[in-house]
């Protein structure tokens, strides 16, 4: 059972992701420079948060052209798990792993705070340890986090991709007042059709230890690596 974190120039949550994976699962996830990805085999790859290539052009746009992305495509095709957090989610969208696009937050500035999230789907290795409809708490920290989908993409929802997490209030109600950035339908995370690719704007690694409160983020990593252990992923 192996996990690894891909480091692009400007990634800044790479160490955090590795730290949280170790705290939550005991797995040591090495940091791998983006041009070296093809040489490292892992069951779970994480594209971490940060400002890859300084967010120049568009968040995630330049990292999506890295040789790491071809390696990730092979990894997913071979049954591997891929998690994009924050900037990693933006890269997954730019690279076409997941549909949609990001705009600046509707408040027009970077926003860092805790949010409530409703678990919309559990049939993904990453979400297998949550209950459907469960309300969890994770921090967000982004400037371009307003997730949007075209009508054509929205119409394929359920076939090509699934909503995984939605911004909600403490009681689990998905409503505009609880939406921190103007994302359509309060979408905070989506998976591909298989559930093996997850992109999420909130940071599970920032709430994966009891010190930080609920430690709700732990189960993302535990679910992913636990599932690998049970033979769903390539590592079996």
């Amino acid at each position, binding site marked *: 059972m192996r996990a690894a974190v891909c480091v692009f120039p400007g990634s800044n949550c790479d160490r955090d992701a590795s730290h949280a994976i170790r705290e939550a699962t005991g797995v040591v996830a090495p940091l791998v420079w983006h041009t070296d990805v093809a040489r490292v085999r892992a069951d779970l790859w994480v594209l971490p948060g940060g400002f890859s290539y300084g967010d120049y052009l568009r968040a995630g746009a330049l990292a999506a052209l890295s040789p790491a992305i071809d390696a990730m495509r092979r990894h997913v095709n071979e049954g591997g798990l891929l998690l994009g957090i924050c900037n990693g989610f933006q890269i997954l969208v730019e690279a076409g792993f997941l549909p949609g696009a990001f705009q600046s937050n509707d408040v027009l500035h970077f926003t860092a705070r805790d949010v409530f999230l409703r678990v919309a789907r559990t049939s993904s290795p990453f979400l297998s340890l949550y209950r459907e409809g469960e309300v969890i708490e994770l921090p967000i920290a982004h400037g371009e986090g307003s997730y949007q989908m075209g009508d054509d993409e929205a119409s394929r929802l359920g076939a090509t991709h699934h909503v995984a997490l939605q911004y909600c209030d403490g009681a689990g109600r998905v409503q505009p007042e609880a939406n921190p950035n103007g994302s359509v339908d309060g979408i905070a995370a989506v998976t591909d059709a298989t559930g093996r690719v997850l992109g999420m704007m909130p940071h599970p690694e920032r709430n994966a230890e*009891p010190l930080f409160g609920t430690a709700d983020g732990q189960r993302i990593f535990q679910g992913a690596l636990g599932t690998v252990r049970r033979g769903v992923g390539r590592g079996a």
Partner: protein
Amino acid sequence: MAPEATQAGLSEEEWAVLVRGLGRQPRPAEALMAGVLWSEHCSYKHSKTTLRSFPTAGGRVAVGPGENAGVLDIGGGMLLAAKIESHNHPSAVEPFQGAATGMGGIMRDVLSAGARPIAFLDALFFGPPGEATDDWLAHGIVAGVAHYGNCVGVATVGGLTRFDEAYARTPLVNALCIGIAPMDGLLRSSAGPVGSKLLLIGAATGRDGVAGAAFASRETSQDEATRPQVQIGDPFQGKLLVETVLELAEKGLICSLGDLGAAGITSAAAEMAARAGRGVRIDLSAVPLRENGMTAAEILLSETQERMLACVRVEDEKAALAICARWGLPAAVIGTVTEEPTFHASLDGAVACAMPIAVLSGGAPLSALSEMGGQRTPAAPPKDILAAVMDLVGSAAFPSRRQVFEHFDDRVGLRTAVGPGGEAALLRVWEASATVAATVTARPRLVAADAFSGAAETVLEALRRLAAVGARPIGITDCLNFGDPDDAAVASDFVGAVRGIAQVATVLSVPVIGGNVSFYNGRPGQPILPTPVVGMIGLVDPAIDVAALRRAKAEGSLFLLGRAEGGMAKGLPPGPDVDAEARLAEEVIGLLAEGVAGFVKTIGHGGLLAAALGLAADSRTGLRLVTPEGADRSGVWCGEGGPRYLFAAPQGAEERLRHAAGRAGCEMWRLGTIGGDAVLIDGERAATVENLVARRGARLWGTGVRA
């Protein structure tokens, strides 16, 4: 006076000293280099003498003032580097880039020590909200702090934001950076052995910010002509620079390191040479340039951001360049360390500079400032408590600062145990099995009333803030923001404030490990308030349960520990009673360690009234408050300063709180109970919870977007 002197910003006396030191007329570049290195910003010529009264050694100090950042030993084989610096003048002209480059500059200072930057705190002072120019400045500065800090991946974990007429159109931007390094990873700026190479790493050099340091040594005019002197920050390059430099350091490829901040190559290379008693020979044609036709002086003085100068041994040159290339950063060997203590620089074979290092970096004539006696300006005490409540709740001091710090990534790095909004920030340093506490404090109105006592109170407030999170201070870094030092009243305030900080630091045995002086703040004839900002670093008592501290809620009863009344009742801050403060702080830490009370608030700006009303708003609860018997109501609720803490604790904790206060030679009063839908003071309804919550949530600035 020689026209070259005026052009270089040198006084007649300084010009004479320069000519005497060289034994000849200076070359054009030499005059400009001396002009910048001898400027107030670089040479501290007005403040150096006064600052000598700070205690700077002992305790955990590994590196004291003078290096790029002060360094403390935090145990467990780990070092902590910290420094605070101002970026006031650039931020007044171009708020976004001024603030952004301020963050970058202080981060590189910490990086210069070989430390990985892990946290920022900032102290921001703006004119009152509502005026277009001041709102533009405030917006730009907050956005600039966010832009750099968020992108570079260093958490902004605390700070303060103040509004006062005195900062109208002359905002202050002070940023503190904290970094950590393993004991054997400490780097210094002293040049390596003779023959070793000077490696310039980072962004290509352009004309931006040529002689910016001289600019910061004048009073600001919002003049279009000064705009090009503000540099442009690129946090992406800054992040690459951090990783590159730390990898070079980890692999042992660097003998010394310096940041290219004010005065660029000139100051970094001169400092390296001066500290080693050696010289440098620089080939300016080797410097990667962004623009054509730059003169030698422009290359030597450019303040292009995101650059550092490393000294590497000849045999390590190739390996070092390969690491820079892998991170995608331009790097070039631009010179060598020489035996002869001369700053030698040439461009395309033509000598531009050949100055003795001693003249360049130690030559500025110093002037001592003096304190005038009896310069005290009492503030008017409040007339009536309920009127004071109205004033406070309606003022810009009351709304939550969440709307400021929400712009900042406060968690990246996973070290933030307590972030912005706490009494002090708490950072886990698992490498040392330690929790570091950090806070910044400023009491400019008190300093204006009495510089000595006001500055002393500023340090003591920091001490109390650390105590309130269970931490003991280990070091101070200070940023002294004042007006024109040639104004006798400004000079007197400066000397008095330094005396206040020095006395408290000395009695507490907490060293001042570095900092920054910023003069010439204000518009002509209108200096800012004297604004010493104190950054204090501490270590949390290992017996403290940090997770419990995070969870603590205001429940039960309210108690006041220390003294019934704060100072300022007579319009002046109280004289510092450092021994009483230290004893009480120790008792507060003890109470937290025993778990007697988890919820402690210090009493700062706005007095007990602000502390209590803030608590009511944040906890969405009413309070029934009673003035301690026999005490002066105004002194109790509106007084500021002195050893005082507000505790929320179960009723049963009363005796233990009383004993703790008694052991410290202080007293304790039960102030009232928590609950209800309004704040009552001596039975009078001061404010409803609904109103307090609404005012706490009020926007400081209209955003024109979503409220």
